[in-house]
């Protein structure tokens, strides 16, 4: 068969595709280096302080516990942001939703005025509620064609009312009258186990379980379909898979994880607070990105491990940052936002620097 050559713009786009792939690889490595230098500097900056006041072990253990709880959140954000490629703002609402459900189920008022505590069931229901919230966002963006970001914002706004309803029109509910998950496990084990050990073991169990289940799930046929949806929608449709159903499923699972994180946190800190969801997405994104600094972008399973690790490192960073004099606790959200901005802008900034260098070199040769 005779073949003929003719100019074709598509070919160039295919070539560009390959080169941008290499570009991404290179970006990741310098991105990792930059990240490690950043953490090293932060470590050195706080070194003197730490020596002066003594290394506060309890603070570090506390950070680990919190980090693991927020690890569940990071898993949820990883699913929407990295696997599906959609930044999902529902998380701000579903995090508080998980908290509210978990808290409400721990201090249930029975008809005769006594308190009934069902923290385990509460956490399970919180997961389901989170999935429902995610499914709503998913339906908004697929079935009703609302912009993905706006869909998340709409659900998040609506959830504020739902959360207030669940908490009985109070913005803050303490679990002091009920028996939380941590206390009930302690009671089950005889009541004389080290409290701090239980506060570490429960988050570890949740993280390990979530990691194993998600790692299995994203290797099943359904999991492959979801990953392909985030990768190439055309190919998914051509393989006779319903793209909308995949998106809804993925966003639901992600928000289930986020709500689970909120639910465990409510048990851990002993209260649910209506405003604690603000900035959840940014915290999750920061965790995912910090994890990638250390693990790079590889397979999904490594991605899950890196998200959890990222969340723990994020908590350590905050513990360190709080030790710097003149660094108020309320600056944390700003720092989180800046971390995310820097990490997400690195590829663009690098491309610009490369282009500037190229222009400079071209000028020299001219």
């Amino acid at each position, binding site marked *: 068969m005779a073949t003929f050559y003719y100019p074709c713009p598509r070919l160039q786009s295919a070539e560009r*595709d390959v080169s941008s792939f290499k570009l991404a690889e290179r970006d990741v490595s310098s991105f990792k280096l930059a990240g490690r230098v950043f953490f090293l500097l932060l470590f050195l900056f706080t070194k003197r302080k730490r020596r002066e006041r003594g290394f506060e072990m309890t603070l570090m253990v506390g950070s680990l516990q919190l980090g693991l709880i927020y690890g569940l959140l990071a898993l949820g954000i990883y699913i929407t942001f990295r696997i599906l490629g959609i930044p999902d703002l529902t998380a701000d609402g579903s995090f508080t939703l998980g908290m509210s459900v978990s808290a409400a189920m721990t201090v249930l008022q029975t008809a005769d005025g006594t308190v009934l505590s069902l923290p385990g069931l509460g956490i399970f229901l919180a997961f389901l509620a989170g999935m429902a919230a995610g499914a709503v966002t998913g339906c908004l963006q697929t079935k009703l064609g609302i912009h993905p970001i706006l869909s998340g914002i709409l659900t998040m706004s609506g959830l504020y009312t739902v959360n207030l309803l669940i908490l009985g029109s109070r913005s803050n509910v303490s679990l002091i009258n009920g028996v939380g998950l941590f206390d009930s496990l302690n009671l089950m084990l005889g009541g004389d186990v080290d409290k701090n050990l239980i506060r570490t073991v429960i988050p570890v169990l949740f993280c390990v379980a979530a990691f194993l289940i998600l790692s299995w799930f994203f290797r099943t046929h359904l999991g492959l379909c979801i990953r*392909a949806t985030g*990768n190439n929608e055309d190919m998914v449709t051509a393989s*006779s898979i319903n793209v909308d159903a995949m998106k809804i499923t993925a966003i639901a699972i992600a928000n289930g994880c986020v709500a689970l994180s909120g639910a465990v946190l409510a048990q851990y800190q002993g209260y649910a607070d209506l405003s604690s969801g603000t900035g959840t997405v940014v915290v999750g994104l920061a965790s995912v990105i910090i994890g990638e600094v250390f693990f790079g972008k590889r397979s999904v399973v490594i991605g899950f491990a890196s998200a959890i690790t990222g969340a723990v490192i994020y908590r350590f960073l905050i513990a360190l940052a709080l030790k710097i004099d003149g660094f108020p606790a309320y600056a944390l959200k700003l720092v989180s936002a800046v971390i995310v901005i820097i990490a997400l802008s690195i590829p663009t900034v690098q491309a610009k620097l490369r282009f500037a260098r190229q222009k400079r070199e071209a000028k020299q040769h001219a």
Partner: protein
Amino acid sequence: MLDITGASKTFLQGTVNEHVALNRLDLHLDAGEFVTIVGSNGAGKSTLFNAIGGTFYLDSGRISLESRDITYLTEHKRAAFIGRIFQDPVKGTAPDMTIEENLSLAYNRRKLFGLNMGVQKKDVVFFREQLSQFGMGLEDRMKHKVGLLSGGQRQALTLLMATIAGPRLLLLDEHTAALDPAAAEKVMAITRDIVSREKLTTMMITHNIRSALRTGTRTIMLEDGKVILDISGKEREEMTVSRLMELYSHKANKTLDNDRMLLTKDENGQ
């Protein structure tokens, strides 16, 4: 097998840019036919494929495949029995997933919502065997990400993905056009091989009239959303490129205007 009756599709209806892409088009395909489709720019070739594949619905007319009316069936449902390959090699595969994952997705397309493992060991053996027939060495790269493959390799993989689940109809939309000449020839050879082995009913759009006349069993020419020429058998065997061009100018009352086709003609010296 495939029956299209009175298919009409108008884009941007009621605006100055109104464009009638399909104009009461009728087409019938018998099982096992390999139809090549030629036509000038904007003749409605891709629109016809999009209508059959379900990218959009017709304004009027019906499409039925094996006596089943698919006119209003959604795109992903049609994909269960219609395999499609596009010009852009990037479109048919998921770049961040491995070769075996891509093939598994295409192969298990009717197992939706399955919580079985996505990649089955016994399937991989079958995939390797299929890939080895391409002679591209892809069978030894099952765990490599598809984004690392060349355009020709990706298109060959897409071809296998589109045909591995036994489609009733295969639509090829200039699927070798974005490849370099050697890769294009290779992918074309694989196409002929698969189509004849699986006895697939196939429609192929091509810019290359020579290839259109040499490949397959029947050639149709579209113009202004209608079939203006439909040849097969002896008439087709005797047809030459220049004769076809003449016929076109006669029927469409203008010279064939396809930027790619003219180049083909020049290089051919015909």
